[in-house]
């Protein structure tokens, strides 16, 4: 959960990686790459944060999490389609309100899908890891295929709002606007999560539940109910991530969630399963390394996530911020 204040080594590592690359590339390229990495990291963080909390709280690893990402992206597209007049307008306010509406719809829809998924798929196999993996995977396949039935199997284009297109240019440095948008949004999600977890009573219970669930239950709190709420919130975040990810690629495919799930898993392993802070740092680390590697050594970039994971696990075998009970 929240890292002890003294343990800033992982954060320094991210900074160190970013600075270590600086001598090898021009400054303008470095800025572009770093912003791209940060944007990618934020999107992955938004998708991964719910998964790591769900795992930390109830020991449930949901292989269907990727399906929520896809559902979110498709629902957002359903909303953005009719709002073409808003997204096409060349001014910020209608653009952003269209995106906000789409995000709201995506989060609502994935929250509801998450609730149904928890009821139908996760609950009956509670505490049985093997069947849990199989059933959540099967559930994800069914959800994906239902999307294919509803929308057709072919990739679909998503309109990117006008105001988020193009780049901000300063001297010879160019940064895509959409990436800045993703960074800002990701930081606000992280800040909001931090505030909820650190400053509210619910957050206190969640953190306590991750550390020691039976004790929280013994104190009279219904940890199951808490879990369902966290599961829904996590699904909603995955939906938001799906919107961002879909607009970033400007293309939706049925398998987009399953594709990104691998990265999400690597990130939550690196972060220390159950730790939101670790998940944040892990997402930034993998995304930055992937971007730098893609520029400096394209062939290496294909395996960069795995390499980062292996190196991190050699350094800290339980992940960057190991959760106490594991």
């Amino acid at each position: 959960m929240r890292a002890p204040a003294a343990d800033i080594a992982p954060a320094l590592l991210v900074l160190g990686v970013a600075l270590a690359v600086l001598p090898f590339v021009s400054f303008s390229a470095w800025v572009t790459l770093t912003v791209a990495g940060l944007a990618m990291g934020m999107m992955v963080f938004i998708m991964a944060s719910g998964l790591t909390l769900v795992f930390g709280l109830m020991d449930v690893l949901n292989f269907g999490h990727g399906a929520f990402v896809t559902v979110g992206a498709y629902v957002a597209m359903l909303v953005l389609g009719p709002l073409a007049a808003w997204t096409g307008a060349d001014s910020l306010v209608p653009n952003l309100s269209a995106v906000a509406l789409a995000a709201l719809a995506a989060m609502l829809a994935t929250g509801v899908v998450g609730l149904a998924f928890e009821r139908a798929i996760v609950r009956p196999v509670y505490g049985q890891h093997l069947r849990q993996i199989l059933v959540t995977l099967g559930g994800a396949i069914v959800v994906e295929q239902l999307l294919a039935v509803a929308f057709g199997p072919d990739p679909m284009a998503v309109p990117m709002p006008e105001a988020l297109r193009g780049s901000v240019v300063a001297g010879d440095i160019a940064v895509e606007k959409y990436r800045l948008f993703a960074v800002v949004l990701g930081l606000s999600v992280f800040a909001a999560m931090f505030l909820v977890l650190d400053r509210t009573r619910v957050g206190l219970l969640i953190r306590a539940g991750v550390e020691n669930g039976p004790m929280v239950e013994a104190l009279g709190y219904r940890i199951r109910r808490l879990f369902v709420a966290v599961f829904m919130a996590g699904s909603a975040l995955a939906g938001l991530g799906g919107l961002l990810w879909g607009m970033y690629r400007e293309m939706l495919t049925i398998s987009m969630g399953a594709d990104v799930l691998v990265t999400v898993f690597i990130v939550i392993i690196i972060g220390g399963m159950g730790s939101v802070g670790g998940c944040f740092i892990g997402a930034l680390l993998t995304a930055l390394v992937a971007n730098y590697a893609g520029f400096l050594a394209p062939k290496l970039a294909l395996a960069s996530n795995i390499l980062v994971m292996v190196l991190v696990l050699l350094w800290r075998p339980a992940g960057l911020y190991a959760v106490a009970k594991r």
Partner: protein
Amino acid sequence: MALVRALLSEDIPRSRVLVALLVAVLMGLAVAPFAFGGARALNTAATICVFIVLAASYDLLLGYTGIVSFAHTMFYGIGAYGVGLALSYMGATWWAVFSGLATSLVVSLALALAIGLISLRVRALFFAMITLAVASVFGVLASQLSDFTGGEDGRNFQVPELLRPGHHFVEGELLGRAIDGRLLTYYLVFAAAVAVFLVLLRIVNSPFGRVLQAIRENDFRAEALGYRTVAYRTIANCIAALAATAAGALMALWLRYVGPKTVLSFEVMTDILLIVVIGGMGRMYGVVIGTALFVLAQNYLQAVMGRAAEGLSALPWLARALHPDRWMLWMGLLFVACVYYFPSGIVGRLRGRQE
């Protein structure tokens, strides 16, 4: 009878229906080239042989040891690519087949050992995630390093002279079938599949296999009894990987082609999972029945679905759901239902109270 018992490692099917089904599958596969005409039927039979090996080795992990791996297609792919690339670069000789197979077995063993040692000490979940990550990276590498692997298109290659369809051993036909290299390839695949299956059956019924099942039931207790669970799990992982590699090599010989779609895609992985779950986890015979049913359904039921979809054009939603491309929808539903309601699969059902 004693010979049969010895071959089956004293693990007799214990159900009359099951015996009948197993004999039917075995006989069907043994006479397939003569009994069912046509390239498609033979292709289906060869696929069943290869998938029995592939799924049986997966059952060693999932059903007997209780660990979920998503890297099984990776090992399958290593076997297929090993033989395929060796044949296309070194020429169509037996030497290429064997060196390709040997190389891929060594690579698989090393990878399985590395993955096992890194992640099997932790927990089932961790292993599942790490194997998924490694397998997906391997899949990306195979399609990206296109100069070497042929990329998305894969590679076609020639097999050794003896195995080519153009090679006739005798003039004329026997029971309406030319005695050619294709026939020899089929029986090579069939014999190898039977042999590997019997070896796997022997392994799960050995004292080693009993320890694996003890670990599945309660790893803490197995550890307390003095078994080094990490070592056992790792060895099981390595054996399964080697068998999957062998299956991949057989598939490459049969198809004379390797490509990421046929041997590395996640669909193959879900197929294996489905076969093992439908047949019955932790029951080697279940794999045989499951594979036969699944591959037959995959090859013939999809056509039925297509026709049903056309007939239902009045109900567009249902028609789209029944489209052959939505095959996975029904498989996914079946899969979830099986995990919930028939965790012991077909074989568990057939054995009924005896289990």
